[in-house]
């Protein structure tokens, strides 16, 4: 179990979601989109990442009509804010100083569950709810995105596939060989961390439902049922790694596809239906700038046991900072988006199912794109908050655990000032220690540091070998706090050594990984700074790679090299270019384990 900081809040809706809020997805908060003409009133909208491009375009169209209310011109601006982060900010009153972006008038998270989170947390603080007035913009169901040949090997599209089939395949020692494809290895599931991601939460709830055979009214007794827990454990055991965003999986899958290796990266990824369309367009991040179409497209499997929808509400907030003109403008913008059928057709073009029932489903929600507009056959009910809370706590006990070496840069540059009067190393030490709570106590964690010539000619040194966190926590914390900076940056040989160490003791029942944090560029003696041998080494094992999750710390970090390391090991690069963000970024990284 995690330490109390993660489990302290009794209800999931204030615990798991609060975690999500704290760490908020990879996107966090980014600057407002759209300009506000001089003299006009800004109507800020905070929206979750998957619909930023869509709503930015619609806001531009709306603003082009020169809307006025009570004689004042207005302009809607769009700001990307992860649902969980927005929920936390709103529950806390959203800072007036703009540090989290402008205080929103309109808020569109991925799911109405987040609105319930905000209202419940405000209620607990004795305040009235502010997420009351909502209208649905669009919907999209959670699906299992599978490479088409793999789905076909399971009988798709004639045969319905569900979580039980995945469990059977995951537990079969022959893996894909049991259905005639030994070359695909074991079944591998991509699934985000339910404490961080709406998709992950929906998938986790769906797995528990599948274990019970129910479609609604999941109970605490269901969660505690040993047979249910065994089912959950079995499915989770197939997980490649977790993480805060489905984009990590989709990006990696696309990159592997372009290299002709997608069938060994992941067998299925739990994502929203809209993500399948984006992937098949060659634009997994939905940037609007697609690359080549994938060689092997993904198809959407709608789990036969049922699934949940993301319902993408647009709330006009009953918040004290919202004035009457802004409210009127937000209502008009929401009408513009939802009631205008032409704009709902734009919603469909982006791959969402329109929230306005007057707009029929059509392209791109088609069989040609691997989708079935008449699915899902069964919709699952969102569990009650107390059940969700129990479910999340139980998931912590049954999820796949990790075996991770934390490889930390202690080179001289880490003594540079990071912010708030503290060095980068001091900030990092505090971040790492506080982030240990995000590991599971059963996770095996080790600590290495690197600079140059820390142990004879070696640039790295093992301070604590991997062991269950519960047994080494105190030692780990005190060792981290005692770190001092000095020397150069022997980045590549240290990384390779850490990966070799994990590989030598590879445990197929765990997520095997290296967490690499560095603030600089490799400055080792030649040929130590030739990255190619390291990249070759990292990519040399397709089936069971040791994933390296780099954190680029500070503005001098070699983002390009670290990105290449992440790509080669099929992991994900995290950016903490502002040292003051290191704690939040560390927590995001650890969400993978």
């Amino acid at each position, binding site marked *: 179990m995690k330490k109390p900081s993660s489990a302290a809040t009794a209800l999931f809706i204030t615990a798991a979601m609060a975690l999500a809020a704290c760490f908020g997805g990879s996107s966090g908060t980014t600057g407002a989109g759209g300009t506000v003409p001089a003299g006009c009133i800004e109507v800020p909208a905070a929206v979750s990442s998957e619909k930023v491009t869509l709503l930015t375009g619609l806001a531009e169209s709306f603003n082009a009509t020169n809307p006025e209310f009570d004689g004042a011109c207005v302009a809607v601006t769009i700001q990307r804010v992860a649902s969980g982060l927005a929920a936390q900010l709103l529950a806390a009153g959203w800072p007036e100083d703009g540090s989290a972006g402008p205080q929103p008038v309109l808020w569109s998270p991925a799911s109405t569950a987040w609105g319930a989170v905000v209202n419940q947390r405000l209620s607990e603080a004795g305040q009235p709810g502010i997420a009351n007035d909502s209208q649905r913009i669009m*919907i999209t169901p959670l699906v299992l995105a599978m490479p088409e040949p793999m789905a076909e090997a399971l009988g798709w599209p004639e045969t319905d596939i569900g979580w039980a089939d995945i469990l059977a395949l995951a537990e079969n020692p022959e893996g894909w060989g049991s259905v005639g494809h030994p070359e695909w290895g074991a079944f591998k599931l991509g699934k985000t961390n339910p404490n961080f991601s709406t998709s992950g939460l929906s998938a986790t709830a769906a797995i528990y439902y599948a274990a019970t055979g129910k*479609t609604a009214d999941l109970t605490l007794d269901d969660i505690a049922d040993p047979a249910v827990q065994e089912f959950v454990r079995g499915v989770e055991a197939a997980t490649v790694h977790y993480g805060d965003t489905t984009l990590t999986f989709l990006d990696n899958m696309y990159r592997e596809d372009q290299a002709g290796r997608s069938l060994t990266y992941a067998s299925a990824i739990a994502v929203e239906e809209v993500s399948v369309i984006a992937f098949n367009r060659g634009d997994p991040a939905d940037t609007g700038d697609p690359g080549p179409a994938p060689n092997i497209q993904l198809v959407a499997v709608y789990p036969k046991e049922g699934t949940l929808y993301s319902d993408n509400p647009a709330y006009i907030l009953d918040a004290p900072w919202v004035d009457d003109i802004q409210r009127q403008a937000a209502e008009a913008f929401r009408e513009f988006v939802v*009631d205008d*059928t032409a704009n709902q057709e734009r919603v469909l073009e982006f791959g969402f199912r329109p929230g306005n*029932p*007057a707009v*029929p*489903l059509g392209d791109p929600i088609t069989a040609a794109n691997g989708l079935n507009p008449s699915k899902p056959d*069964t919709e699952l009910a969102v569990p009650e908050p107390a059940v969700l809370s129990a479910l999340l706590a139980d998931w912590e006990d049954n999820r796949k655990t990790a075996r991770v070496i934390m490889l930390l840069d202690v080179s001289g540059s880490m003594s540079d000032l990071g912010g708030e009067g503290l060095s980068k190393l001091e900030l990092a030490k505090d971040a790492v220690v506080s982030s240990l709570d995000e590991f599971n106590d059963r996770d095996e964690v080790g600590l290495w540091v690197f600079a140059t010539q820390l142990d004879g000619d070696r640039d790295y040194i093992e301070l604590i070998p991997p062991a269950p966190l519960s047994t080494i926590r105190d030692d780990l914390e005190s060792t981290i706090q005692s770190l001092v900076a000095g020397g150069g940056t022997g980045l590549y040989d240290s990384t390779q050594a850490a990966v070799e160490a994990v590989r030598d003791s590879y445990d197929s029942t765990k997520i095997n990984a290296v967490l690499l944090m560095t603030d600089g560029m490799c400055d080792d003696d030649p040929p130590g700074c030739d990255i190619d041998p390291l990249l070759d080494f990292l990519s040399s094992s397709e089936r069971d790679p040791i994933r390296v999750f780099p954190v680029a710390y500070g503005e001098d970090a070699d983002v390009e090299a670290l990105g290449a390391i992440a790509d080669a090991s099929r992991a994900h690069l995290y950016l903490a270019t502002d040292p003051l963000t290191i704690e939040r970024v560390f927590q995001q990284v650890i969400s993978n384990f």
Partner: protein
Amino acid sequence: MVSGWRAALVAVLVGGVVLAIGWWLNRPDSPGTTGTTDPPAGAGVLACPPALDLACDGLAAEVGAARRTYTGGEVTEGTVVIAEAAALPEAAEPFARTPVAIAVWHEKAPTLSETCGGIDVACLVENAGRAWNDLGGSASWGSLGLGLADATQGAVDLDAWRLVDGAGPPASFADAVRLRSADDGTLLSDLVLFPTRADAVISGEAAIAGQLVNAQNRTGRLDVFYPTASGWVEYRVVAGPGRAADRLLSDLLAPELQAVLGSLGLRPLDGEATGLMQGLGQPGTPLPALTDAEKDSLIASWTNTFGG
């Protein structure tokens, strides 16, 4: 109750009605079903709750008014509102009416009709939550799930609950109501967006009529059935300040518009409906209006069943 042959006839009629609505919506000057329109200069704004989208889009097109959604509150300048009486000032005038009706997914209606010898509220209440497999349907349909709108919020929703309550729902009834929405307009919209949430809904006929075409285009056909008797809810109309609103109100109350209400999903205050509503079938006879005591009792019953 609707007998088997009558159910088949209704199904045929509904098919014709769907085509008729499709034609109406696609006629050259159609505004679409829910589009927000800008008024000509000086024209008023017609605001209605979502349940009356179909009717109000059509009325607005007839009189050249803009459309807005009415969610309660003050009737603003230049605006005319059509809504249930309780939502409007006392000065509001009677405008149209609607009975309670039942909508069932076309694929499942014959099985249910066969089970009950027709489809009515008692049939739904009695079989709610039962496995479709036991009712003669496909096991893949799961169990019979129903949809209702919040009876504490609207008169037509309270009248729907009146029928359910009168049928003596068992203790487990709430579990079978898989779709509960704030109002009848949202209920029908949710049904179209999330078709597996409910196999049948009991709601206002106007709200059902407003989603028949959308259901057909998006998900599948809905069949409409009527209780043998039900409450009929009156919609009223009121103008906000300003000459534009006065003019719009006058236009809406003109006899010519009353004559086309039936084609827009509403029933005129007196006389028979024509067009769409005529094709949907014969509603049940009107029950006496609920007394305040009966309303309180039904609201308490609703709250006991579903919680506060």
